[in-house]
């Protein structure tokens, strides 16, 4: 039975997140340094600290420049073979 690559556990528990959090840090790409995403420029990737504790990575769609501490809320976007988690700024939290 496979183990989690990050903590080696064999037992998984799904914890539902409300999908809200704040930007812990971010980068905004203005040049296509990560191959294959030139059409998306400029785009922002953030480390988001969810209200439940864990951090996740995701695109943040917001006016530039983004600020650390900005409240964000999870969104989902379907691609042909996967679903992307990204974030929008949270209108209920500044």
């Amino acid at each position, binding site marked *: 039975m496979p183990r989690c690559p*990050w903590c080696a556990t064999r037992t998984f528990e799904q914890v539902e997140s409300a999908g809200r959090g704040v930007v812990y*840090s971010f*980068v*905004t790409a203005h040049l296509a*340094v990560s191959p294959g995403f030139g059409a998306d420029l400029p785009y922002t990737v953030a*480390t988001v600290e969810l209200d439940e504790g864990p951090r996740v*990575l995701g695109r943040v769609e917001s006016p530039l*420049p983004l600020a650390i501490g900005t409240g964000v809320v999870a969104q989902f976007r379907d691609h042909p073979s996967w679903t992307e988690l990204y974030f929008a700024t949270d209108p209920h939290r500044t």
Partner: protein
Amino acid sequence: MTATVRGPDRSAAVAGVGFTPFSRASRCSVLSLAAEAVAGAVEDAGLRLQDVDAMGSFMVSDDSVPCVAVSTTLGTGALRSVLDLQLGGQAPCHLVWQAAQTVTRGDAEVVVVYRALNGRSGARVGSMQFAGMGGQYRYPIGYGAYLMYVGMWAQRFLYETGQGPEDLGAVAVSQRTYAQANERAVRRQPLELAEYLSEPYVVDPFRRSDCTVEVDGACAVVVTSLERARDLPHPPAVVASGCYRAGPRPGLDIGDHLLWEDYTRNYTSWLRDELFGRAGVSQEDVDVAEIYDCFTSTVLMGLEGLGLCERGESGAFVRSGGCALDGRLPTNTGGGLLSEGYLHGMNTVAEAVLQVQGRGGPRQAPRHDVVVVTSGALMDGSALILTTDR
């Protein structure tokens, strides 16, 4: 001055350094580059290739050649110890420390440590995708370049410490000034802060001048016993202390930083006490610093992490000229990876050796008895303290 950890009793030293030119296209194999730098270092140390009986090197995703290949090409002595590490810029200080201990144990007498790569014309680490599961949530969203990972840390570091673009820019400007006195450097045109600030972002918070230049090239250093080094042409650079450290949950690869608690403190914070304690020196004793600088932010984080500057004060220190040749702590005296070229920190170590030996020429620091050098940028890395033979 707390020497709580025993070191190798200053019994090993770096005796020589070797380089190829750094270029955008070497037009030769990595093996050829490695051979040139290793042979150059051995000659510089006043030794013969037959004297070499151990080697160490590192590579990222097979971008270089193993020690036995270089030993074969050059016809070194029979190897008694070898270390081929699958590591990037975390490795150089670690390898020199391992070489020193190898010599101290008596496992070998002359160890060459090198890094060779066609880092510009061949495989480019900066945009490389790593095998394993670390990238599975990164690469699909366009988060797949080294400068993005370091930038993610830098943004938080600047925010928490109250520093900004002028502080990053001061690092780039300071090091470009040194590069003008270094013929090996690939970026030598003068840079002013206003010009830096007018550069567009590559990846916010980094502009072009915040980023190292990928190059083709090789660099090597020779480690032997202090006793033997005293009879060789150049003054010994005594290996007083070395340390590698990874903090908890360092990630599945260099871009996998989600489990790292604090993006404002890298490995330098973790190894500081052991590094200085083992050497029996304090931060105030340091004459020259060579801080790993794939990007400008890691210089600030390194100065603060090692305790050479107070938290949040490194930028002001650089802006006030503290890192210049006539400043309190000359730093990255060869122009660093930013201006000299990205040999993944092997050249950072070589510059530290040249400074200790007093061979810095027009960029020689006036005081150079204690030099600290680091390798690495994020979750793990290594460092050395080199001293004159006092």
